């Protein structure tokens, strides 16, 4: 069983190591929370403490006063929802073909999925910027959603192909023998079995778009159009002098939706990733 050692001292060492990891993983996040709830006076103190003495919600109030956070969250929500929905709607059929069919097209698609992970985005964003500018889609959520859809497709395909392969072929063949056509088989047999995988993929695409920064930074110019991550950087100020409390409060709020969604789908994502990785 044990790969690291078996003795009692080895086990104690393992616990110490695990404790170190837990501290390493947790401390920045705990510090963010602590900072978010500290009153200005404690933030200015030269000897900061872990636990705020007079915890306050002032920073949250101030954060909403300083920047259009609600509007930004709304923009992020619209962009991420639209991108996730469109991505799975168009990726699922393609993933099905890629999983069940081996020909030059599917080989090329698989190759593209791998290679696209390696693009430096700057090489794609300059032409996209010029194209969207000509179409008058700069500074619109619509333009951003188009970019997000394509940008989330490789990973969506990767996950979905894994889920399709996990559906036993025999089920589809049985339906075919019973006289169901391809489309009928797909809708009544395969789709219901794929549903949990499709939901997981959509949620993952949602988080990726919700968290995305680079494309949003380049494509969205005015504050009322910008998404949450871009608006968060406005708290940093021009010279990097930041109002720490509101900054921490806003950053903490921006993380909550992804944390919740991620906690729900975490097992499925890793499962989907691995299904894609192991079986291809």
């Amino acid at each position, binding site marked *: 069983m044990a790969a690291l050692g078996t003795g009692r001292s080895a086990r104690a060492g393992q616990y110490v190591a695990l404790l170190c990891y837990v501290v390493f993983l947790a401390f920045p996040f705990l510090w963010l929370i602590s900072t978010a709830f500290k009153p200005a006076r404690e933030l200015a103190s030269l000897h900061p403490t872990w636990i705020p003495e007079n915890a306050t919600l002032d920073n949250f109030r101030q954060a909403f006063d300083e920047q259009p956070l609600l509007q930004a969250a709304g923009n992020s929500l619209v962009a991420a929802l639209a991108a996730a929905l469109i991505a799975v709607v168009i990726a699922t059929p393609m993933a099905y073909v890629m999983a069940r069919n081996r020909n030059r097209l599917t080989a090329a698609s698989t190759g593209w999925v791998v290679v696209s992970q390696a693009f430096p985005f700057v090489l794609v964003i*300059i032409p996209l910027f010029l194209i969207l500018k000509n179409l008058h889609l700069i500074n619109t959520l619509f333009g951003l959603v188009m970019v997000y859809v394509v940008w989330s497709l490789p990973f969506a395909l990767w996950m979905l192909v894994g889920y399709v392969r996990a559906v036993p072929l025999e089920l589809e063949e049985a339906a075919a023998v019973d006289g169901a056509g391809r489309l009928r088989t797909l809708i009544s047999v395969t789709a219901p079995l794929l549903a949990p995988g499709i939901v997981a993929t959509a949620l993952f695409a949602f988080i990726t778009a919700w*968290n995305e920064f680079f494309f949003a930074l380049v494509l969205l110019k005015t504050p009322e159009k910008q998404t949450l991550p871009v608006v968060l950087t406005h708290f940093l100020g021009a010279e990097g002098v930041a109002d720490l409390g509101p900054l921490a409060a806003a950053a903490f709020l921006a*993380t909550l939706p992804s944390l919740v969604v991620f906690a729900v789908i975490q097992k499925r994502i890793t499962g989907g990733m691995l299904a894609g990785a192991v079986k291809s």
Partner: protein
Amino acid sequence: MTLATATARTGKRTDHGAWFLVLPALIPILVLSVGPLLYGIALAFTDSQAGRTEPTEWIGTLNFRDLLHDTLFWESFRIGLLWAVGVTVPQFLLALGLALLLNQQLRMRWLARALAIIPWAMPEVVVGIMWRLVYNPDAGILNETVRDLGLGDGRDWLTGLATALPAVIAVGVWAGMPQTTVALLAGLQNTPHELHEAAALDGAGAWRRFRTVTWPAIRPIALAVTALNLIWNFNSFALVYVLTGGGPGGRTRLPMLFAYEEAFRYGQFGYAAAMGCVMVAVISVMLAVFLAGRLKGGDQ
């Protein structure tokens, strides 16, 4: 396989069916991904600029010749490689350690697993902001810890010429650990326990069991993850943009930050596209090295 048999059964109809299923995704991919990529490569050979009134012209390899003499660009390239390797290697070692621990029957492992989600789910911008709070010279916990331990007054980590790059690398390691850990853990869980037990019965020590049983089992995943991490890290942007903006004095200016500034602050689209092309070339070399290593591994 089924489609092949189905095609044989139903004739041409299925082929059209397959195209019908593929096109909704294929068209956006071609128009918004492959197309812009080719367009981007073409731009690298033009003098395209933001707000130019006269038409854009082909200038051949002039951008690339200018790049050759652009010491700032090569400095950012060197920093990019330092950053990519500096993040990927410690991240891999730490993630391997955590994966081995999480594979044991330890009591706290659910907590470590739950915590490992946090860096993964967080927006990179928030990770950057969070660590700026940790590194803050006066109100940050890092300097307070340094002071408590009597190691001096602490320092301004992100703006110090010597500390800036190591400081952002530490954040990169933290932010990318979960994915690597999960991938390695999956590899470990596919390793049959019987092999470990047999090796233990034969009297093999922990290190020996790791080398002869564990490592061979996870080697393919480890290589794939390392290659991807190198590439992703080389291309990263948001984290360092938020942490330092590329400063101080360009000490953390990764190639992506350099190209971003060139394109969207100074409007030099053609020149920035040329930078992108050079980055693609380097990444291709990395991929080739990785594939060669993998093929060699397959022979053993």
